[in-house]
């Protein structure tokens, strides 16, 4: 996979993950073009289209378009399933995910995507293991946050000012 984009019906980009190094200008251009093409398609049209020298697989979930650009030899249907799997992961994690969840917790969406895909290939397709990894990461964050709160207090105490 070359890249994955998430954007709303209004053309707002919610998530972009690039698996090939491209310059910022080039990226913006590609995103703009692709959004235009995909948003122009009617609902009954098929989910695959050819764009530049890549194949683009997209699916619309509620108000969000999930768009993946794959190379010539990749399988389109499996990419479609991949998108669906990712949506399932998001759904399980956020609980009935909606666009707002992704807007407010975009870094979590990125982390989930990173656990699921790496370098453009599928890493682990098991919902359990992906979400377990994310949960562990969350725990680590909370533990650290908790530890932070304690130390200033103890420092003050040590100094005899508390």
């Amino acid at each position, binding site marked *: 996979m070359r890249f994955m984009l998430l954007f709303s019906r209004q053309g707002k980009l919610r998530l972009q993950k690039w698996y090939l190094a491209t310059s910022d200008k080039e990226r913006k251009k590609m995103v703009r073009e692709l959004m235009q093409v995909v948003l122009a398609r009617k609902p009954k*049209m*098929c989910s695959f289209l050819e764009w530049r020298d890549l194949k683009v697989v997209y699916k619309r979930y509620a108000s969000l378009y999930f768009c993946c650009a794959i190379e010539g030899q990749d399988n389109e*249907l499996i990419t479609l*399933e991949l998108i669906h799997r990712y949506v399932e992961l998001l759904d399980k994690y956020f609980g009935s995910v909606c666009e707002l969840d992704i807007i407010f917790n975009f870094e979590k969406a990125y982390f989930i995507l990173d656990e699921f895909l*790496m*370098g453009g290939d*599928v890493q682990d*397709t098991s919902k359990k*293991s992906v979400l377990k990894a994310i949960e562990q990461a969350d725990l680590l964050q909370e533990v*650290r946050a908790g530890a932070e709160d304690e130390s200033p207090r103890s420092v003050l105490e040590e100094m005899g000012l508390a």
Partner: protein
Amino acid sequence: MEAVNLLSSNRYTEKQIGYLFISVLVNSNSELIRLINNAVKNDLGSRNPTFTGLALHCIANVGSREMAEAFAGEIPKILVAGDAMDSVKQSAALCLLRLYRTSPDLVPMGDWTSRVVHLLNDQHLGVVTAAASLITTLAQKNPEEFKTSVSLAVSRLSRVSPSRGTELDTDRCAARSQHTCPRCLIPRAVLQIVTSASTDLQDYTYYFVPAPWLSVKLLRLLQCYPPPGPCPPSRGGFGGPALRPLSEPNLLVRACNQLGQFLQHRETNLRYLALESMCALASSEFSHEAVKTHIETVISALKASSFHVAVGSVLVPQTERDVSVRQRAVDLLYAMCDRSNAQQIFHLLHSKFHLCSVPTRALLLSTYIKFVNLFPEVKGTIQDVLRSDSQLKNADATVLEEMPPFPELHAVSVSRPPGAGRCAPRAHRTATLRRRAARGRFLRLTLRGRSPGSRLRGQLRQEIGSSRSILNSEDVKMFTEVCLAVSAVLAPSPPSAEAAGSGRRMFIFYGNKTSTQFLSFTPTLICSDDLQANILGSVAPRPLAEAACLCVAHRYGGTFQNVSVKLPITLNKFFQPTEMASQDFFQRWKQLSNPQQEVQNIFKAKHPMDTEITKAKIIGFGSALLEEVDPNPANFVGAGIIHTKTTQIGCLLRLEPNLQAQVKRLEGIAEYA
């Protein structure tokens, strides 16, 4: 810089944010790269698997060459280390894959390769998936190293999709796979759509298909090696890769029939995939016939999709609305075209011509031209059609004449016009069609003159306004309004001494500076016989009296346009400049005093006589400017050699300006019989 500091923090959150930041900013700042690499190295070796995972992710996302240099040796070790955690192993596998894709030379094969193959047997399916991806890519380059993976992959595949029989059967099959060709396993494995019995697979079961991604990856891996036995066709997209290694004819036919059913399916995606797969099958000799039987279905797919709109109580068939599907259908028609159905297909395509959308029309027109070359029996019909089409009014027999195949085929690079986004897909599509057709004779604009020893690459961007071309007045007016840019300057780059066998190449870029796209863009080359002979390989030592002409036919804003521009393929393009000393020059000059070999022209200077400009012109002409050869410093002297297939023709020229009289005398001498 802050981000790099975050990387070295011990706290997970900060580290994570740091890595996220780094992955997004791929800059080539050397200072930072070193620091980043350092931090990554520390994390790679860290005992905390989460940190190692983060580091691996960073390497995979950035994947730059410096990182590859630094870490390509480390990662295989992590991959095969006995105590590595599952998550680390799968991340390492994919990271290595990424590095291999960008810098294959930096990833050394070692004894880790055999261990990687064994990863296919791992308990954790994520590891198996990642390993399968890695091995598939590596095996394409080094099939010998990974041969042992085949049997492992097959047995894994069978374990993932257990047979309908008992567990015992599976084991027996798996055991058999080690010894005999696993004929029984693959069919069963591929056709199974059953709920997995074993618990560890339940998590990987996706809507009743056990571990589909893993199965596809394993099938892909098996594709790299010669197929062990016949495989029955499988359903849907998951079978896409499985179809390729099929070689038995009747299975292919069954596959075709099944795809034929999909052609009329309600769901657009399935129609699209069916058309695409059939296109691939059409190229195989076994299935070509079978594909042809479906021509009616394809035609009806073009005409009417399966979903009907209810108008009152009558179901009215609607024409296929989806452009992607239509394009695929036309691709398929082209692929399945051969002598028996060429007429039919041509008539069919042409009957739809007026209905077709704009990019499709362009595609059809170029297809007709290919038909003319490939199927002579249709030639007559097509020529009538093309003649009646006003945009090709300049087309005559020479245009449709095919060019004989060249030993080296160089296609004209049709680059994407900057402004016309919709023109691009058509150009690409034609290129795809060209690639797809197996028979290799096309109307290519290939120009080739032989000249051992040097290569002159000229970019043709020619100003329409300044070209002496066959435009009529309306066209010219149109163009100045529209600013059609087939704008060109001939800028030969200095010839570099390169291996023999090269020639003069001309790249033609078509640019569209207007806001409206050009439709039915068809360039054709018209050249005189002389030049044609020259183009076809041997430059005959005859002056090229009439320059070749490039006809660009297209449709702009509803009217047909035909632009003809002269191509600057003249003899001087085949010059190779030669240096020589003064005595040599004059010696030869005196030698070649045969009147047939000499030509002299005295003309009034049209432009002010500027030394530098004149020098530049002479050099641009192709000959070497010989300084200080002529006793008269105001004269310009040049020498060059025309290399032809058979001979070499030396040419000398001398330009004597006479400032008082504002005239110049140009003498040229060439040595040929």
